[in-house]
């Protein structure tokens, strides 16, 4: 078996840059849709709140409430959706 050709990823001009790590994507998603407060938090505290926020999001989306950034959760975060927050604020 030949080694899979390593895909070269390029940044396309004019694209709304979205090359984020999964963690960055999750953090942005949870804040944008009202699951997590947007003000900054200390390291430890933010871990707790992220897990809590993830569980809230997983419940809203009908996913298994693991509090982890697992594959189904990440897929759901990439799925096209409405821009209105899920947690009224």
């Amino acid at each position, binding site marked *: 078996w030949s080694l899979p050709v390593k*895909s070269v990823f*390029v940044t396309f001009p004019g694209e709304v840059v979205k090359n984020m790590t999964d963690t960055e994507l999750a953090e942005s998603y949870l804040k944008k849709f009202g699951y997590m407060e947007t003000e900054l938090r200390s390291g430890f505290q933010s871990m707790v709140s992220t897990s809590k926020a993830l569980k809230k999001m997983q419940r809203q989306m009908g996913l298994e409430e693991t509090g982890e950034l697992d594959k189904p959760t990440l897929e759901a975060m990439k799925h096209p*959706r*409405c821009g209105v927050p*899920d947690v009224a604020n």
Partner: protein
Amino acid sequence: YKTFDGDLKWSHNDVTYRILNYSPDMDSSLIDDAFARAFKVWSDVTPLTFTRLFQGTADIMISFGKADHGDPYPFDGKDGLLAHAYPPGEGMQGDAHFDDDEYWTLGKGAVVKTRFGNAEGANCHFPFTFEGKSYTSCTTEGRTDNLPWCATTADYNKDKKYGFCPSELLYTFDGNADGAPCVFPFTFLGDEYDSCTTEGRRDGYRWCATTSNFDKDKKYGFCPSRDTAVIGGNSEGEPCHFPFVFLGKEYDSCTSEGRGDGKLWCGTTDNYDEDKKWGFCPDQGYSLFLVAAHEFGHALGLDHSNIRDALMYPMYSYVENFSLHKDDIEGIQYLYGSRTGPDPTPPQPDTPTTTPYPDETDETDETDATEEPSIMTTPSTVDPTQDACKHIKFDTITVIQGHLHFFKDGQFWKVPNRGDGGQQGPFSISESWPALPTVIDSAFEDVPTKKLYFFSGSRFWVYTGNSVLGPRSIEKLGLPSSVQKVEGALQRGKSKVLLFNGEDFWRLDLKTQTVDKGYPKNTGDVFGGVPHDAHDVFQYKGHIYFCRDRFYWRMNSRRQVDRVGYVKYDLLKC
């Protein structure tokens, strides 16, 4: 379901909406229709009604925009956020915004409404064959004027049904040029342009001048996207260029190479490495109807639901035969209650009404139906399941005994002019007026004598109750033999009627039964602002209505067009 804090809702049931601009992805009539159907999802289960405004401030202001589009919540390019809306209230509250970096369709790929041609605005049929070759998009093959066209059936060579595809060479939308096509080259800020451009704008929309010099004339319009145009990227609206070179390799079709998200893209010049011009390839797109129905749910006071199959679930998924989920219905009825008033019931036979004996001036015709006094009874319904709302265009619309009548292919529907009952029918034309053919081009009632005039092709009939005079040739009325048919009739005063054909009209004197001297006159000269090729003209409740396709132009007694709307929703009460 969830409502917004404080159960935000409209304090009135007659909600208004206004469409502020259009997306280049679909014909404006398809966008109008998608929004109207999206509102109907909610009006079907509540007492709410939705009226479209064409100027001023409506409760729900609808607009398309990209990225930062004027509120604190910018969109994010293709995919991701599709749209958002605000809960009911003043100002921006209640408004709905749609991300125009998305590819708006009806959820199953390009929806290409044709214009002109001979298919009466039917959508393209993909794939279609032409000269033995199969096409999955519009083509300029077979033409020398570079206008993209398509067949509206699977086989052009067999059916010869075709229409022209969206192209800036054919028309523009919005702007201030009433849809006039682009003029190339045109001058803008001293530079010459040979194609649509986003220059001079921050919102990324492609536009063009509709005269050769924008700096002088300031006439412009927005360019419709061709069905093969790329989405987003930095070449919005341009078609893919095949082959194109990327990282030194040649590509003859869209590719996801170079991307981590698997999305298909293409170069819009022959060499991406040099020009860096690219865009996403058209895909199934997002159903504007489904997304709008969701956003209008927000605009009425519903927040997101956590029921995966509910319309108010936050994530988009395409549904073929959409119907509102119980959860959505419970939510909206919690706010506004259920739909009041009885459901439409099939029409019951009316009590018969008598009509006068035939007028002594009319010689009875051998096809005279009966000798005894005529009893006009409401005809029995032919097939109540046949829905008039499915028709885009009617053979003719007219007013008989004060009620609107819609004729189509041997049947007709009535809309009572009182109350808000919907249309009744269909009824069979041949059961009411046995002598008539199935296609009626126009009709009118001479109110003083209660005579009904029907026109079909170059013949006409005059009914008085059940007795009929005709068919006779329209030349008997003094119309020239060049007039193939009468498309509209407009009563004017006691015994005058205007008969319309193409861009002209004649005035018929009912007493002398001939057209007056000094005619024809040009419709556009006398009735400014209405389509010159209206296929229906009638008088109703003090206004004159000119119909073309699915729209009507309403003109008041001062001959001003004071409203343009949908025949289907405003007159047929769908």
